[in-house]
């Protein structure tokens, strides 16, 4: 393996992807280190999926450098793809096969021996709590089960890197937590995991390190804690104005905390102490319909960096 243990698993420099005139990924740099849980956080259309596709070797880059496990995915695609497990955002399971057959068939694509595949498939079914459903067709499975099966399938050849594109979109809270637990276990087992998400809590829960992407660019890099410390204040005061925030006087807003963001019906105020900031807001004549104080999250980092909320 031309990949000494300390070298990054994935290394991108000025990585760029254009579709005609549209720039999907614009000159981004990042390293993913061995054993790391690495995230791409950003709204839909930020360039996360395109970046994942370039890493997975199914989207040739327009320019820049991209090195995966010491090789170029555009030139050593087959070798690199053999080391990467990919879970797509949309379902790609074969509906005509059973749960277990989906795993068996997939192992063959990696040139694995049938006996080895069978053993590995049973391990994975156990790990992802699908053993009871092994002989069932895929279609009647719940969304969470299908997603777990997709991950199990991506792990059939014991990849060095597991890539997940929006793995919990569309899942109910219980299914999400079950999936998060499974991913944490994998990480403890040494698998390098790369995921994209537009869920703040998911990125905060899972990622050792992440990049925040917006409009084809990386706008921040770090651990969730670092990003919050660096780009957000300790606490956040949210004031709610159902009638709109346009008419609120800027002078009143400016004095409340360290900084503020004016959204359609909310004003978000970054501050050291939320209670004290609320008192100052009332003193300056603001009359919010409701208010709350919370610790800063990645959402606030994103808001601060882009001036937009993630769900807008």
């Amino acid at each position, binding site marked *: 393996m031309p990949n000494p243990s300390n070298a990054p698993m994935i290394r991108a420099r000025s990585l760029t992807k254009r*579709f005609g005139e549209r720039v999907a990924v614009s000159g981004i740099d990042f390293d993913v280190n061995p054993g790391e849980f690495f995230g791409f956080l950003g709204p839909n259309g930020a360039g996360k999926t395109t970046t994942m*596709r370039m890493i*997975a*070797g*199914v*989207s*040739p880059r327009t320019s820049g450098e991209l090195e995966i496990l010491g090789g170029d995915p555009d*030139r050593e*695609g*087959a*070798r690199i*793809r*053999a080391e*990467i*497990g*990919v879970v*797509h955002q*949309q*379902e*790609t*399971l*074969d*509906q*005509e*096969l059973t749960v277990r*057959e989906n795993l*068996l*068939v*997939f192992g*063959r*694509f*990696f*040139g694995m021996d049938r006996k080895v595949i069978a053993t590995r498939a049973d391990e994975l079914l156990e790990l992802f709590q699908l053993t009871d459903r092994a002989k069932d067709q895929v279609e009647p499975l719940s969304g969470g089960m299908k997603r777990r099966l997709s991950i199990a*399938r*991506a792990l059939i*050849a014991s990849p060095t890197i597991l890539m997940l594109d929006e793995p919990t979109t569309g899942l109910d809270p219980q299914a999400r937590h079950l999936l998060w637990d499974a991913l944490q276990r994998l990480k403890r087992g040494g698998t390098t995991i790369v995921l994209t998400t537009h869920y703040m809590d998911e990125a905060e829960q899972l990622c050792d390190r992440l990049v925040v992407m917006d409009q084809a660019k990386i706008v921040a890099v770090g651990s969730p804690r670092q990003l919050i410390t660096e780009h957000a204040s300790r606490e956040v005061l949210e004031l709610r104005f159902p009638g709109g925030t346009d008419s609120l006087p800027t002078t009143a807003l400016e004095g409340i905390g360290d900084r503020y963001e004016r959204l359609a019906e909310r004003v978000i105020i970054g501050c050291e102490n939320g209670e004290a900031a609320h008192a100052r807001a009332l003193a300056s004549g603001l009359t919010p319909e409701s208010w709350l104080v919370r610790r800063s999250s990645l959402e606030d980092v994103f808001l601060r960096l882009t001036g937009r909320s993630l769900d807008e």
Partner: protein
Amino acid sequence: MSATLAQLLPHPTRWRHVVSYMLSVYRREWQGSLFSAFIEPLVILAGLGIGLGVLVGDRAAAITGGVSYVAYIAPALMASSAMNLGASEAAWPILARIQWVRVYHAILATPLNAADVMVGAIAFMGGKLLFTAAFFAAALLAFGIVTTPLGAIGTIAATALTGIAFAAPVTAFSVTRQNDQGFAFIFRMIITPLSFFSGTYFPIENLPGPAQAIAWLTPLAHGVALDRAFALGRPLPDAWVHVAVLLAWAIGGTMVASVLFRRRMLK
């Protein structure tokens, strides 16, 4: 986007995993297709023998070269039925795995490349065509139309090749589709007319000159010529030309399908 040769060519062995995947899927439905493979030639031969054959009687002796009209058209219908099977196998099942079940997206994330997937998919269709052709040949033997082992083997091989000569270019068409609307056009405007004007029911020489030229450019005319010669044990001086045209459609179609599939999936 420039692709290296290795990205455009199939790997020597990996495409076979697609065949084995398709066999896993096929295992669940083969009884059904066994039934239709068995019934279809019987229905065609019985229907034509009892109906059309009796109606035509010896009036077609001038074109049949002495054999009954049923014996004349039966090998042509064998080729025509392979055309239908090849084209339909290359239409919906291919598009489904790109667009609806999306399983090809998952396969391209493994070491397989686009050409491996296309070659594997078309090879599987070839297997299915051979299997179906064997039943048709058995029916021709049973009806006494084919009487020699060479006739049986020759018609099976030529029929399967005819089917692939349609399956490969139709696959190339399917991989460019976003929905199945184009398939109706292919079947109505190409497949159905070809089944009439490829020397099936009457010789191509009866067509006007330009139509003859078009017929000879398409695969079915060559499949019909080969099947008829093998089935009736007649000499066919230009046999290698017929085989070459069919091979050109099969190989050319597979190559075009591989390039277009890659372009569609690897953006």
